[in-house]
C-alpha cells in the first residue's frame, strides 16, 4: 500500500480497485467506464458492490463478477459482496465518454445514445471506426458476442463491429 492509498478514504480505495477491472471481451474498457457499477458502499465492514448486467445472457458477467470481488479483496477488504441488480437497468447510454472513445480506438463503433429504446435507424450508416466514413451498410444485427452488430464500410472496404445501442 502506498502513502497516497493510506490517505484516501476506504470507499475511494474500493472505486480505485473497480477501475482496475476490465471487460474480458473488450479488455480496454473498465467495468466503471462500461457503466455496470451503479453503486458501491461500505456498511459495518462489508463492501457491497452493485453490478447491473449488460446483456442478461452475457457469459462475461460471471467473470467480471469474480474479478470485481478479487480486485476489491486485494485492495484490503475481507468481506466483499457483489450484488446483481436490475435497477437501474443497464443501457448502452451508461457507457462513459471515455469508454466510448476507447471502444472506437479498439475498433468497435460506439453506440449512439438511444434512451434505452433502439430503433432500426440507429443501426444504419454507422460511422466506420477505422476511416470515419458514414457510407456503411448494416450486415447483421447479431454478431460474435451479444453486444455486437456487424457492418461493412463501403469506403475502406472492411467489415467492422459495432457495440450495439440497447
Amino acid at each position: 500500500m502506498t502513502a497516497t492509498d493510506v490517505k484516501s478514504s476506504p470507499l475511494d480505495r474500493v472505486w480505485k480497485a473497480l477501475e482496475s477491472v476490465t471487460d474480458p471481451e473488450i479488455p480496454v474498457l473498465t467495468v466503471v467506464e462500461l457503466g455496470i457499477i451503479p453503486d458501491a458502499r461500505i456498511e459495518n465492514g462489508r463492501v457491497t458492490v452493485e453490478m447491473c448486467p449488460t446483456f442478461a445472457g452475457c457469459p462475461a458477467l460471471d467473470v467480471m463478477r469474480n474479478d470485481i470481488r478479487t480486485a476489491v479483496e486485494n485492495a484490503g477488504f475481507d468481506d466483499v459482496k457483489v450484488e446483481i441488480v436490475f435497477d437501474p437497468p443497464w443501457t448502452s447510454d451508461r457507457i462513459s465518454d471515455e469508454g466510448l472513445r476507447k471502444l472506437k480506438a479498439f475498433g468497435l463503433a460506439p453506440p449512439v445514445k438511444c434512451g434505452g429504446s433502439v430503433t432500426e435507424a440507429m443501426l444504419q450508416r454507422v460511422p466506420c471506426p477505422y476511416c470515419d466514413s458514414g457510407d456503411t451498410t448494416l450486415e447483421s444485427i447479431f454478431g460474435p458476442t451479444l453486444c455486437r452488430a456487424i457492418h461493412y464500410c463501403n469506403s475502406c472496404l472492411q467489415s467492422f463491429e459495432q457495440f450495439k445501442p440497447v
Partner: protein
Amino acid sequence: MPTETPLVEMKLDSETRPAVIDLLYRMADDGLIIGHRNSEWTGIGPIMEEDIAFSSVAQDKMGHALAFYNLLHEMGEPDPDQIVFCRSAAQYRCCSLVVLENFTPDAPALGPDLSNNPTRDRLVAHGDWALSLVRQFFFSEADAVRMAALAESSYAPIANIARKIRGEIKYHTMHGRGMMKHMGAASDDTRGRIQMEIDRLWPHALGIFEPTKYDKVLAAAAVTPVEEELCRRWRGDVEPLLESAGFSIPLNAKPCHGGRSGKHPPEMVSLLADLQKVARLDPGAKW
C-alpha cells in the same frame, strides 16, 4: 444493516405469492426451452447470419430465463441448476409453441444412429427452418408484449427485469419482423412454406396466452394483465405485420393449451433427455 431477505418479499400476500411464483416459472421455462430449441441450429443454420441470429437469441433467452430463475431462488425455490436439471416434464410450465421440434411432423427418422449427436444429425437432414423462424417471430412478439406490460408491474423485482430485457428483445422483434417481410417478398415456394408454418403454429402461438387459475389474482394485484388481454395485444401487433407481408391469418383456430399445467407435446420428454443428459450422469457434481 445489509439484509438477507429482500424487502420486496413483504409486499406479497399469501394469495399473490404462489401466483407470482407460477408466473415466473412460466416465463423462465418458456425462455429456457425456446433457447434450447433455437440453440439446436448453432453451427448448422441455413445461412451464417441466421446461424448467428438464432444462436444470439437463444443465448439472450437463456439469460432472461436465468434472471427469472434467480428471482425464484430468492423467493425460496430451489437454485436454478436444480430447477432446470432436476424437474420432470410434468413439472415444467412452458407453452407448447416452444417445445415443438425444429422439424415438420412428416420428417423421417434417421437410420441406425452412429453419431454422438443424433438431434443435430436429424436437424441437418430434415430440419425445417421455416418452422423455427415463424416460431421465433410469434414468440418474440409475445415476449415484447409481455415485457412491456410487466415493465409497469406492481411487483418491483419483475418490473426491473422486464425493463432491462425489453431492450434486448427489441433486437429479436427487429429480426423477426425483417425476416417475415423478406419472406413475404420472396418466391412462391418460400411464401408457401412460411404460410404453412403460420397455419400450423397459430394454435400453439395462441397457447402462449393459456389462462391459468392465477390470472385474476395477478391482475387484481396489478402484477400483470390477464392472459386474454395480452393475447389481444399480441394479435393487434402480429396480424397487421403478417397481412402487410402478404400472409393470411388462420381463422377459427383453437388454442393449444396444457403447457401451463404441465401437459406437454410428447417431444418434451426427449428434449429434457437432451437438456439434462450430462447433469443426470452425475447429479450434484461440482463444476
